[in-house]
């Protein structure tokens, strides 16, 4: 295989290793090589351009590692499915991390290795990616399930050597397309031939989607016994137990953490332990999440909030306040940060019995939030602070606005419900949130019906009013932009409508950069916008 046209990014903190691997890449025919010394430089390079091959050392110094980088770029979608990610490591034992992680590299190589081995591995991965490219091209955002599944069938009919990989993709696609019955048939078909962890967990996920929870639980428990290093089983089981038995879910996450360290899983453990009233465990988990990474790329406000709350619950007021204060050191100043800190401080002070200080902090939070478009976690924090201070009506107003902004996001709605429940308003919260969700769906449906009936001006007016009010609701913003673009397509280019469509797309991107309909509306905009119109960044 000729690799001379391939571009590569080599990430290693040690200059001598960068030189050595660069020579080995050249021996393998790859000369278009950029290098990065750390996570920040790697992210900069990957933002600048797309690489065919990424070779990353597991140990990158500064407390961050190649596995964390891999997880970050996969989550941020900086890594296309066609790019090879090869991890190199001096540590035997990495294989445990590689197979255990949510995001595995395409392969890993134990140092020392020869350039011949490096070339052979790269060729092997590239061959597989080329074989599966026909499926991968339909797995973007949004996924085109029917086309992707048809590509799976075509490859299976051609008797590919990657049949198992194709069946795996087919099962996952069917699950994502909400066709769990067919997914179950695929996974059970594989398992009838051979035992393998991915099909076992796939089967459990399909059973779960079909509502057969008891069977799913039994399959997952057996999977963990046979494949103790396969973490997807722990995560699925913890998710299943989280609703009915959060204490058992906590135990499962604790076991998963014994298998492989993960900031993401420490955060999950902290949240479960906090909910379960196991404050020392929660404190420990959040502390680990905070201390694991001094580079700051991987941690979130939530980690410090969890740490502050678990300390406050144990009467460690000074440590709780320190955690709140330290947020200023580790995160860039922003309205979200300032509001979150004030809301957290209000809760810590209230817990410590300092009503005056709590009231002052809450007022600060409420003042700072005025006029700012805040993320869901910040809004939830303010609502919690309001409930803690006895300001239930204020809390409900905030949660109402949050539910309107995020009516399609079940995770946010569940968190809002948890805030209601913690304030002793479980039933009221459930009714309130459901009504809000229905109202928002109705608004969108009415507007879409108007647009389809040709009443574009009316639809635009309705959606613009909603989008200007609900700046964090990505779907409303996208629908407003779509209606404006439909008008342009029907009646010809109109600078004002193009400008407005751009504004609503940007608003949607800010609200939810991962919204499934964003690529569609962005493509529509690019098709209709004349030269000189405001540009949209690449997804």
């Amino acid at each position, binding site marked *: 295989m000729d690799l001379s046209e391939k571009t590569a990014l080599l990430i290693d903190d040690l200059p001598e290793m960068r030189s050595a691997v660069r020579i080995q890449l050249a021996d393998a025919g790859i000369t278009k090589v950029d290098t990065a010394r750390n996570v920040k430089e790697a992210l900069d390079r990957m933002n600048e351009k797309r690489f065919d091959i990424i070779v990353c050392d597991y140990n990158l110094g500064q407390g961050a590692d190649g596995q964390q980088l891999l997880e970050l770029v996969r989550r941020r979608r900086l890594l296309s499915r066609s790019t090879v990610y090869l991890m190199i490591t*001096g540590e*035997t034992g990495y*294989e*445990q991390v*590689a*197979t*255990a992680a949510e995001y595995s590299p395409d392969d890993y190589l*134990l*140092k*020392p290795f*020869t350039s011949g*081995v490096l070339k*052979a591995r790269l060729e*092997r991965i590239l061959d597989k990616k080329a074989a599966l490219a026909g499926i991968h091209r339909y797995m973007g955002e949004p996924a085109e399930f029917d086309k992707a599944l048809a590509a799976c069938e075509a490859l299976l009919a051609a008797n590919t*050597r990657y*049949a*198992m*990989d194709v069946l795996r993709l087919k099962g996952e696609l069917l699950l994502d397309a909400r066709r769990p019955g067919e997914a179950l048939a695929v996974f059970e078909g594989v398992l009838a031939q*051979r*035992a*393998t*962890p*991915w099909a*076992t967990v796939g089967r459990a996920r399909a059973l779960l989607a079909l509502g057969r929870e008891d069977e799913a639980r039994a*399959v997952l428990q*057996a*999977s963990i*016994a*046979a*494949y*103790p*290093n*396969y973490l997807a089983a722990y995560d699925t089981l913890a998710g299943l137990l989280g609703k009915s038995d959060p204490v058992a879910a906590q135990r499962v996450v604790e076991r998963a953490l*014994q*298998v492989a360290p993960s900031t993401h899983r420490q955060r999950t453990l902290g949240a479960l332990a906090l909910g379960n009233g196991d404050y020392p465990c929660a404190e420990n988990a959040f502390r680990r999440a905070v201390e694991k990474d001094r580079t700051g790329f991987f941690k979130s406000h939530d980690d410090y909030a969890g740490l502050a709350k678990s300390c406050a619950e144990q009467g460690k007021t000074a440590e709780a306040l320190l955690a709140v204060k330290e947020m200023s050191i580790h995160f860039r100043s922003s309205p979200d940060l300032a509001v979150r800190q004030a809301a957290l401080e209000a809760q810590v002070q209230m817990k410590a019995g300092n009503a005056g200080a709590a009231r002052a902090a809450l007022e600060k939070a409420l003042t700072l939030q005025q006029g700012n478009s805040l993320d869901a976690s910040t809004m939830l924090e303010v609502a919690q602070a309001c409930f803690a201070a006895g300001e239930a009506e204020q809390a409900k107003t905030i949660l109402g606005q949050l539910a309107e902004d995020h009516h399609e996001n079940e995770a946010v709605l569940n968190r809002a419900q948890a805030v209601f429940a913690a304030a002793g308003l479980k039933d009221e919260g459930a009714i309130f949130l459901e009504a809000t969700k229905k109202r928002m769906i109705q608004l969108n449906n009415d507007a879409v019906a108007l647009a389809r009936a040709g009443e574009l001006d009316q639809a635009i007016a309705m959606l613009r009013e909603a989008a200007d009010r609900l700046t964090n609701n990505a779907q409303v913003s996208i629908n407003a932009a779509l209606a404006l673009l439909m008008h342009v397509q029907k009646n010809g280019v109109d600078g004002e409508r193009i400008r407005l469509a751009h504004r609503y797309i940007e608003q949607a991107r800010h609200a939810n950069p991962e919204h499934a309909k964003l690529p569609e509306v962005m493509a529509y905009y690019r098709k209709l916008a004349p030269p000189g119109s405001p540009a949209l960044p690449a997804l």
Partner: protein
Amino acid sequence: MPFDTLVATAIHDAKNSLNLLNAWLDEAERLCPSPPLAQARGTAAQVAAQLTELLVLYRETQGVLRLSIDDQNLPDFIDDLRQEIAPTARYARVGIEWRVAAAEAIGTWAFDGWQVRLVLVDALRNALRHATTHVGFELSAEPSGGLRFTVSDDGPGFPPALLAGGEARPGEEGSGLGLRFARLIAQKHATPDGRHGRLELNNDQGARLTLILP
């Protein structure tokens, strides 16, 4: 630091140093190939493998050994195996006969590729050392569901005590580390329906070691 942890850490360091030594020998052999260098490289690789096996056994005693079972493409797995044994095989007195056509037919199987490769490379090294004229490596499907890897030679065969499932007698038949490791890795392979891997030893005009994975 407790003594067993100290020993484990020292083994870990020694193993990494050996890997480094191996890299240098590799480079030296590339610049100036010679049988003694190849022998030295093979020996370094063997010692590194033994230390790795020791560490795995240590992890097991600590209750922290977990296999990483995942799909392995068998033709690729066999290629890697052949590449790994190549430096040792190149200067051995006998060649290896590879009967691996089943790899293409079976395609993929789930097992811990890294640990199983260690077991098989170790078995092949031993076979090359003891064989008179012939070493065989065979991959086949286990009729009751599973995978069979068989390494055979035409040497003196396993001592009776080992065939009876006993341990090697120190000094006479080596430390027995390789077999102990192989048994552990075989047994650790399991499926959700409760099947386990196993290791079979027998003598049939020489030694035959068979690793069966569920």
